[in-house]
Each structure stands twice: as structure tokens, then as C-alpha cells.
């Protein structure tokens, strides 16, 4: 069966939300964390509701509402989200109160909104949507699991349209902790020169990307979703290359038939070795671009890549700021991403 991406919406560290041109003017940052640019929420969500919402909920709900509105579907048949960390801000607030106040006189507000399904739940609540509602929280597979669930729902004909989202937020606490784990670079780096930094560590990121997937073709579809696969802890680089080749073969394609490969390189010289290996082997004749210089590294960053791919397929060309120099129309895009070398994913999309 065919699955169409009817509309997309993305809040990210770039100007990607609302009526903006497609990545013409990159936002640069010289710290080690790319913070999402939040829109003026009043126009999208009732201010009485936003007052109580944390950043991740506001970002998720706003992106969801924009996506539905652009897709012309007031209420979807299903809402499926993926988030690795969930509502970190509210989790941190409740945890801090609990410790500082010695478990006494606690307000339940932050606890209530700390559950990982809060974004999906708030969307359902605002839309009064009684349909299927699920939230996946599996680290670098969170968005991929949500995407697989959405594809199965459409195939089962349980739903004609599914609202799919990938959301993660960074807080001061999570940045401090993840920095101590050595995830990020020691010295500040400009995001636009991320891939030239030749050092360990990447830069952090966050964002909310939503998609309206439909089994029905419409006039304004961005792209067609062809396939998805994930693999966990592959034993070697050649194993990764074999998995990618198998995926391409399973879709009756050759690598040469893929017009553009988007990879999850993140500027960490150790982590990026696998991408360099693939670039010199399986993707040697492909145009390859990288996206984490725009959104930073986070477990659901692949949702930004899928937004990027859908926009590229809709336009037929890739933004110049990503170093793409080809001039033929892009009709097929493969995304390969891995998170910390543990969770590996492939998503294939094609033009309508």
C-alpha cells in the first residue's frame, strides 16, 4: 500500500516553523547546544492552556496543530508520538521540589505533566480526539517505533490518517548531565563548521517535528513514505553496510537510484567514522548531505531529517546551505541515522 505525507510542521533550532522560506538563512550558534526557536504560541494555542504547559508540550502541541491545519484534517484517526526523554523540564521540577521540600507540601502540577505521553495526550485533549493514542520512548528508536506503528495502523486500515510526531527537549540539567557523559564537545564550535571540527563530542539539540500520514492521496502531498527499518547494535561497519544494501534491495532499488542520502553525522570524530566508511563504500556514487549542523544531536533528531527529506522532495532540490550542488530533480531520498552507534535506522521516501 502507499503512504503519503500530507503535511509537515517542524519547530527546530532553525527557522522552520510557519510561513518561512526553506532553510535559506541558517541560524548559527557558537555554544554546544542548539536551542529550538519557539513560535508565538498565542496564535496557535489558547493562552489559558499554554500557561501551564512546559516547553516540550508547547512545542509538540504547536507543531501538531500547524501540521493538522496545513493538512486540512481537523482531527486525525490516530496520534502517535516518539520521545526518548519525555517531559524533562517537569520531571526536573518535581524531582527538585521533592528533594528541596523533603517530600512535603508538594504541588502535583509538574508531576501530572511529567508523564511521557503528555504531548500526545494534550493534543488529544485539545482536539477531543478519542482515537488511537500511543507514545514510544525507546532512545534512538523512539521516533522510528512511532513511525512503524503509524505505518501498521494505515496498513491495517484502522486509520486513514495518522498524526505522527518526534519530540525531545533539552533542559539545563539534561545538558549538564549529558555533558558530563562526554556527549558534547569541550570547546565551543559553530554549528555550521561542525563537520570540520576534528574533535570528540557533538552539539546538543532539540525539536518537534510532526507529520500527517495518510493512506489517501491528496493534491498537496509532500512525499511518499516507502519504507523503514531499524537495527540494534550491529556488530561491524560491514554489517551496517550489508543492512543498508539489504534495505535498498528489498525495495527493488540499487544505490545509484537514490538521488540523495541524508546521514546522521554529528561532528564527533569517533562517531562519524562509520559515516565516512559508508560514504566511501556503499554511497560512493551518491550525493550525501548531513543535517545535525542544523538541529543538533538528540535521540529523535531523525524526525528533523524526515521533515527535511519531505521538504526536499516537495521542492525537488536540497537547500544550498547543506552543500548540495547537484542540479537534477531529487525524486528519492534515503535517510540513514544512528544514535550513539547503538540504534540504527533507515527511512526511504520518494517524490509524489
Amino acid at each position, binding site marked *: 500500500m502507499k503512504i503519503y505525507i500530507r503535511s509537515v510542521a517542524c519547530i527546530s533550532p532553525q527557522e522552520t516553523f510557519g510561513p518561512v522560506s526553506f532553510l535559506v538563512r541558517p541560524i548559527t550558534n557558537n555554544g554546544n547546544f542548539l536551542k529550538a526557536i519557539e513560535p508565538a504560541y498565542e496564535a496557535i494555542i489558547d493562552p489559558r492552556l499554554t500557561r501551564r504547559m512546559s516547553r516540550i508540550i508547547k512545542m509538540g502541541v504547536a507543531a501538531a496543530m500547524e501540521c493538522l491545519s496545513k493538512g486540512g484534517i481537523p482531527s486525525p484517526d490516530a496520534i502517535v508520538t516518539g520521545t526518548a526523554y519525555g517531559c524533562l523540564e517537569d520531571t526536573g521540577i518535581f524531582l527538585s521540589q521533592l528533594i528541596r521540600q523533603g517530600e512535603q507540601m*508538594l504541588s502535583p502540577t509538574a508531576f501530572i505533566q511529567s508523564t511521557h*505521553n503528555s504531548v500526545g*495526550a494534550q493534543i488529544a485533549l485539545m482536539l477531543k480526539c*478519542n482515537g*488511537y493514542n500511543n*507514545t514510544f520512548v525507546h532512545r534512538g528508536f523512539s521516533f522510528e*517505533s512511532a513511525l512503524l506503528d503509524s505505518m501498521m495502523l494505515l496498513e491495517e486500515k484502522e486509520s486513514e490518517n495518522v498524526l505522527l510526531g518526534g519530540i525531545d527537549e533539552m533542559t539545563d540539567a539534561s545538558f549538564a548531565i549529558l555533558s558530563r*557523559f562526554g556527549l558534547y564537545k569541550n570547546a565551543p564550535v559553530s554549528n555550521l563548521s561542525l563537520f570540520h571540527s576534528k574533535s570528540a563530542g557533538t552539539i546538543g539539540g532539540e525539536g518537534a517535528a510532526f507529520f500527517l500520514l495518510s493512506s489517501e492521496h491528496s493534491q498537496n502531498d509532500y512525499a511518499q513514505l516507502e519504507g523503514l527499518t531499524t537495527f*540494534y547494535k550491529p556488530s561491524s561497519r560491514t554489517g551496517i553496510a550489508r543492512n543498508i544494501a539489504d534495505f535498498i534491495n528489498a525495495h527493488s532499488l540499487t544505490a545509484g537510484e537514490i538521488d540523495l542520502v541524508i546521514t546522521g553525522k554529528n561532528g564527533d570524530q569517533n562517531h562519524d567514522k562509520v559515516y565516512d566508511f559508508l560514504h566511501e563504500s556503499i554511497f560512493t556514487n551518491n550525493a550525501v548531505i548531513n543535517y545535525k549542523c542544523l538541529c543538533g544531536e538528540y535521540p529523535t533528531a531523525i524526525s528533523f531529517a524526515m521533515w527535511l527529506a519531505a521538504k526536499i522532495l516537495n521542492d525537488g532540490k536540497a537547500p544550498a546551505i547543506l552543500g548540495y550542488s547537484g542540479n537534477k530533480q531529487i525524486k528519492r531520498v534515503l535517510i540513514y541515522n544512528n544514535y550513539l552507534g547503538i540504534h540504527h535506522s533507515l527511512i526511504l521516501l520518494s517524490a509524489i
Partner: protein
Amino acid sequence: MQLTKNTPPVFVAGVGVVSAIGNNAAECLSSLENYKAGMGAITHLETLHNEQLPVAEVKLSNKDLEDITRMDSGTSRTALLSMMAAKEALLDAGIDNISSLRTGFVSANTVGGMDKTEQFYADFLSDNKKGKLRDVINHECGKVTDLVADALGINSYISTISTACSSSANAIFFAARLIKHGMLDVAIAGGADALTKFTLNGFNALMILDKEYCKPFDDKRQGLNLGEGAGYVVLVSARVAMSLKKNLYCELTGYCNKNDAYHQTASSPDGTGPYLAMKGALALSGLQPSDVDYINLHGTATQNNDFTEGTAIKRLFDPKYPPMSSTKSFTGHTLGASGGIEAVFSIFSIIRGIIYPTLRLQTPMHEFTFSAESFFSVKEDIRNVLSNSFGFGGNCTSLVFSKITG
């Protein structure tokens, strides 16, 4: 084997459970039969509330669990409980050639490694360079699943679901669909949650914890007791089912996920979400309400849940109600584990013909003409069991397990 509307079929070949009433399925069943509740004073958690709030703790320390599961010292209790029950389920299924099959692990939890994170956070708050990193490394819900998948040697497909108290019912449901779509041959599915100060204080702040042992579906119910544990089922495709030497337990014939869309924490007075979930699950099984022989209630014993759930049951079943009970009166509310633990109890209801009691039920709810069961009983033929799991965020999921016919 007869194929139902719900094809291709998915069968249950193994179960595993750890809860406050037992460290394995046999012990839990024995406690259920003997009306033995698992609640008591708090012993494993260091909390201000340990004299005031009863909880249903698993009667093993982290050290005990580390020894049994052979997982590393310092592992989150959530992962230890998960490993304990998932391993039992996998052994129980008795699948010889597991490594040659596409085997997945779909697990659920609500707060991941929070039991360790809250220890880390006390030091971290005073100085963000402090706190032992090994206490926060397993914070993510998904990390708990990865740890157990690695220990079980499963890598074909791994995922984690977190939809509050319906989490593990959704994990079972999602895993079944992976088999139906031909992606997996075998899936271990369910969930785990350990008691944490985070959840205990959260529910306490919401003022929905009973200071006495909870009384589900009783007119004088005062709230829930938190519990902890893990419950998993091993689901297999028809092809794998044929190759097994053991008897299969039952078939998962129905499931449905709906959202109440009423309030973040409160459930609707008309029972919309639970009603739609139960109705949808029965429709998928091709069953009528009169075909249901037992309902394992969500039955948390909060004013709100039991009224909403009762109202939904009235809408769907009136005037002929099947026997129903809340086993949370034994295990407490185990949050992300409850759907898995109660799935295991529902499966035993079918294979042994058991109806479980609801403990401490004295005054049935005045709003309804039906009442939950108070006594343990054995019936000859329990063909279909409905298991309910509802959670914060309006997430409502019902599962239907059915006796294998033909």
C-alpha cells in the same frame, strides 16, 4: 486450529510475573487463591511516608534481584524486575530454537531508572558537577529495555512504550501486531515499574493514595495503593505455535486503544475512553459482550477510576454482567507493569477457569446494580477474558484473551 476474524492469529506460549504477592507466576497464583494481599509498610524505599502509606513492594531487595538475574550491581530496580519476569516468561515458553527466530522485546515502564536518578539528583541539585553518573546512566525508559534485551540476547526488534498506567497493555498489543504483520516470529511483551519516591510523592500530592489497604469498587474506597513488579507474555505466530511441544495458553484475539480526551489526570464521568476501548477490543475478537466470561478490571480504587470504569461497563454490558474483579487489591497499582501483570492473571483465568476475588470489598458501589467478585472461584469454562488498563493522559486500552478452540 480455527482462524477467527482476527487473522493471522497470535498465541500466548509463556508467562512471567513478579509482584508483591509472589516472585513468579506460581507464587502469585497461590496468593490469589489464598486471599493474601501484598501490601505492607515501606521497607525498600527511604521516604518520609514510610509509616503513613502502605505500598505493595516486591519482597526482594535489589541485592536479591541482582543475584537472581545476574545483572550488574547498581542496576535500576525497574530493570531487575523486568529481567526477572521476562526471563521466567521466556523459559516458560520453552522455545528451543529462539536464536534462529525473529524475536522481539517490547517493554513498557513509566519512569525508567528513576529509582537511581532520584539518588543522583539530590547531590546534583547542590552542585551540577556532583552526583554519581552511574546512578543516572540508566534513567531513560528505553535504557531499561535495552539492558534486559541485552541480558536476554534479543536483538531482532526492541521498543519501549510509555502511556502511563496503560503502558504494558499497549506493549502487548503492539507486539502482537508486529507478529501479525510478519515482522516477528516471537515477542516478549509486557512491562515493569519499581516503586520510586518520584511516583509515590506524585500520587500523594494528587491525594489519591489510600492510607489503608485499597478497596476497589467499594462505595467507601479512598484511593489506590502503589505497587511494583513486572509482567510479561511470550507471543508467538501460528507457525511457531505449531512447532512447540508444550500446550499453548490462549490466543490474544482482541485489543483496542482509545483516548478518553477528557482531562490530563481525571477520567470522564460517562466512561467514553474505557467504553470505546472495551467495545473496540470485543469487535476485533468478533465477540459480543455476552461472550465475556470474566473482566480483570483496571479497578485502581480511586473515586474517579472506578466510577468511570463502572459506567463504561454498564454502557456496554447492561443488563447481563460477567464476573469481574480487581487484582490490584492484591498487587497494588503497579503503573506501567499493571497491564502485563494483569494479562498474566487473565491468561491463568482462562487456562485454570479461575475468577479472582476483590479483597476488602464490603459495600458495592451504590451507582451500579453489579458488583465485583469477593470470592475466589473455579468455573468450568472461561472462554474469553477482558483485561482493562487505563491511564493518565486519557490512554485507555483493553485486551481480550480467548481459549483456543478447534
